């Protein structure tokens, strides 16, 4: 028994060693209080392309309690992913943003992919999020879309955030301004 996620249901049987039983209880409760957490932003320049599904590559995470970020894996994986430490459900929140002068009619979509595909198994990866006509003016006008999803991942599945935007503008970069950066937060919520 350990504090790993998700916690096992403790077996507290009469006649068993009391210390072992109580530590089983403590470890399971500790696991519930400390689910896997991953929070990251894209704080440095990132070139992106219009009319293209692309995963955001994350800068060094703010938090990564289970060591799921790609470069932390053995062997190291790409920095655009969080590798699910255990099978189960995860609450994912993410924002994608663009920097530059927009154009009339431009839309931006934020979406999540699990195992490189649609988290629902019914849609197409990269489309299943808010699709919004964002501001069309200068780079000082935020061009950001965000959403929260609950997704299921098997242990080892990559969870990635997809950015897609339409072709009206000539934007080729994400916004790295504090507060407007692409961001992701992932928290384990159960099995």
């Amino acid at each position: 028994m350990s504090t790993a996620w998700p916690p096992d249901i403790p077996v507290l049987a009469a006649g068993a060693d009391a210390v072992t039983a109580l530590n089983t209880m403590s470890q399971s409760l500790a696991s519930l209080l400390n689910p896997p957490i991953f929070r990251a932003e894209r704080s440095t320049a990132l070139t992106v392309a219009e009319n293209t599904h692309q995963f955001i590559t994350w800068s060094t995470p703010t938090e990564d309690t289970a060591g799921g970020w790609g470069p932390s894996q053995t062997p190291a994986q790409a920095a655009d992913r969080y590798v699910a430490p255990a099978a189960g459900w995860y609450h994912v929140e993410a924002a994608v943003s663009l920097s530059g002068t927009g154009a009339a009619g431009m839309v931006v979509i934020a979406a999540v992919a699990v195992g490189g595909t649609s988290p629902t198994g019914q849609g197409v990866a990269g489309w299943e999020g808010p699709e919004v006509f964002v501001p069309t003016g200068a780079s000082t006008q935020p061009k950001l879309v965000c959403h929260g999803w609950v997704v299921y991942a098997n242990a080892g599945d990559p969870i990635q955030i997809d950015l897609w935007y339409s072709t009206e503008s000539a934007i080729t970069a994400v916004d790295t301004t504090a507060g407007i950066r692409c961001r992701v937060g992932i928290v384990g919520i159960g099995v």
Partner: protein
Amino acid sequence: MGTLTRIFLPDGQAAILPVTPRTWSDSGAATLGDPLRASLLTTDASSIVAWHRQRPLFHGIQTLAQSIPASTWTAITGLGELTDNWSGHSDTTNTGRYYVPNTVFGGDWYLCSGLVPWNTNSSTDAHITGIRVNGGTVYEGMKLPGGTGHALTTSVVDLLQLDGSSDYVELGAWHNEAAAVNTVVSSKLPSLQVRWVCANPSGLPTPSVPAAPHTWTGTDVVSASATGSGRVPLNTELRDVVRWLMNPPIVRVHTSGTTQTIPSGAGTWTAITWQGQSVDNYGMWTSGASVTCQRAGLYYIAGTGAVTETSTKAGYRAIRIHHAIAAGGSADYYGVAAMPMTGTKTTGTSLIADAFIRLAVGDTLQLQFDQTNGSTLSVVSSTSNGARLIGVWVAK
């Protein structure tokens, strides 16, 4: 009503869910203390883990396009279950409904969210995604226009109190185009997600954030509340942890009954002032625009900013969560930024911002709105379709 699907513990007994933990008693001069029985520990410790491993969770998606009539809130029907671990949805009857589980607390809190993709190119009309409770009140989410050449997908997120003896939720859609609009089900689909986050907090204790659970040794003495001389109190190590897990800090503040205007100006961020609370079990809000953290931890925060529009519109609309750090500094978490409707309708614009934010005691949060209409816009004042800010503690 939601069926209370049974969870069985490793020893084969059905878990008693959810858990109202036992208060242990120490022995005294005239009283016997509570015996440390495996069955008593199982009832609380094993059951709480069993509940929180599989909190009620529903995710349904629509795979057949549906025609949404104009100016009428319409439930998205024909949901197929991706998960429904407490059996609150039927595939054959009222297929758009999710009935929450019936718990002993009666009126637990659920985080509800949804997406509706619209097959529309209309930039002159509003399209809204909402959560409808019991076929009546609709809690509105994003309210946005479409545009040329692309579809539109709007979203909703809210924290709602639902009673498992009767309550159900539906994903709702509304628009004010002249004719009906279909949902999109290719590449993207209408989606409803509902998950349990807190028991009905009425009357429940509000403990401190649990410390790291004790590592037991052979020299420890199990006590109820007594400390010192090697005593480790179960009321701290078990009871209070269970209390916390069943009643973590949650908050929902909203506008109601008053009028606030948002001035025009790029980068002129205006905090929305709250008039009431739907839930605030740890006392994060008393008045004004700020909620203040009372228990440290990682929170899921989401805000919906709703404004009316003028007949002549200009510029953009944007929203953000502003985090003022008690130790110094601040951080912002921008939300959806969008263009308003064209044309002369004044239906309004609603935007959503959400983020996982780590809060320390004393940190404050505001929901702020920015617009460049050239004139003021009014904040929509309502507990259901107005501006609101929600927060849920999710981890230490």
